[in-house]
């Protein structure tokens, strides 16, 4: 069971990451490339949250309905960090999309193969 979870959850995260990378490397459509980047991010975030999980732990919130003892809580640090990572990922995605729009205006295409004014 433990192995299944380990490989299953980590495997999913890595699969997402690699899927994203694959899209970035193979897709010709700029939008799809940006989506690939987002998927890559999602995989990373999933992995990050997953490594903070502790079997039987709950959210690290001392709520009044059920004051928990700290030793039953999952690691809060990855959650805090992943929040940051998500926001950063959003920022990058937004800028990427803006660039795609600019490129579309400039080249009238979103095919990355046709956007090669700069080389060598």
């Amino acid at each position: 069971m433990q192995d299944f979870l380990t490989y299953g959850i980590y495997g999913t995260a890595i699969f997402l990451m690699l899927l994203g990378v694959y899209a970035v490397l193979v897709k010709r459509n700029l939008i799809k490339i940006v989506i690939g980047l987002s998927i890559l991010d999602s995989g990373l975030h999933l992995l990050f949250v997953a490594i903070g999980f502790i079997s039987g732990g709950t959210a690290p919130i001392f709520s009044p309905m059920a004051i928990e003892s700290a030793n039953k809580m999952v690691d809060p640090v990855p959650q805090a960090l992943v929040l940051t990572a998500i926001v950063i990922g959003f920022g990058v995605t937004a800028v990427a999309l803006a660039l795609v729009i600019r490129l579309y205006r400039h080249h009238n295409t979103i095919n990355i193969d046709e956007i090669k004014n700069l080389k060598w």
Partner: protein
Amino acid sequence: MKKLLIFGLLIFIGVEILDVLSEVPFGEDRMKVSNFYLEKSPEVLKVSNVVTAIVVNFRGFDTLGEVTVLFLAAAGIGSILYRRRSVHTELNPKRTSTEASNIVQAGAKVLFPLIILLGAYIFVHGHLTPGGGFQGGAIIATGFLLMLISYRKFFVKHSGVTWIESIAGIVFVGLGLLGMVYGGTFLENFLPAGELNSLISGGIIGIIYIAVGFKVGAELTGVLDTLLNISQDEE
């Protein structure tokens, strides 16, 4: 051929990383500094949401950076996509047919304040319940998104966005600097911590998270507005 190569490379990478991760079993307790946070957050800061305590106080500096990233994204998009003056005055006749249906519009009207309220609720209670400034801000932006896509004529006042994000940013940094004045270090929690699980607790943490909420909400809204209105504006 190239795809096959890429596929092979990625499989190799996946196997390598998974191989290493297999030595990091899922669900094990690996906490070191986190134990300190879990202990100090309710005791010293009186913040029941430990994630919030970390985000706003223990690692508040990260959050300042994060807020900056959003601010930056908004500014960056603004500079990448300059806006044409004509966007709001004259709608593209080609597009009139694609106005959202009346039903969606009516629904959006009703749900808009409720979604905003949910966002506000979330960032006001960032130190008590799940979520916080970022999540609340994102929900608020979602509310605006709903309006933006339902009404083509709905637009966000950019000067309002500017004011909100600037003032919220100043509140964040200002509170941090006040921490230097009254506590000695930047972002030091100089206000009384209060009582665990009451709204007024956690000292500056709650205030900062509210500011973050405003800032994130304003920035995301601005970003969405820019992206949506620019894409409507064709060359």
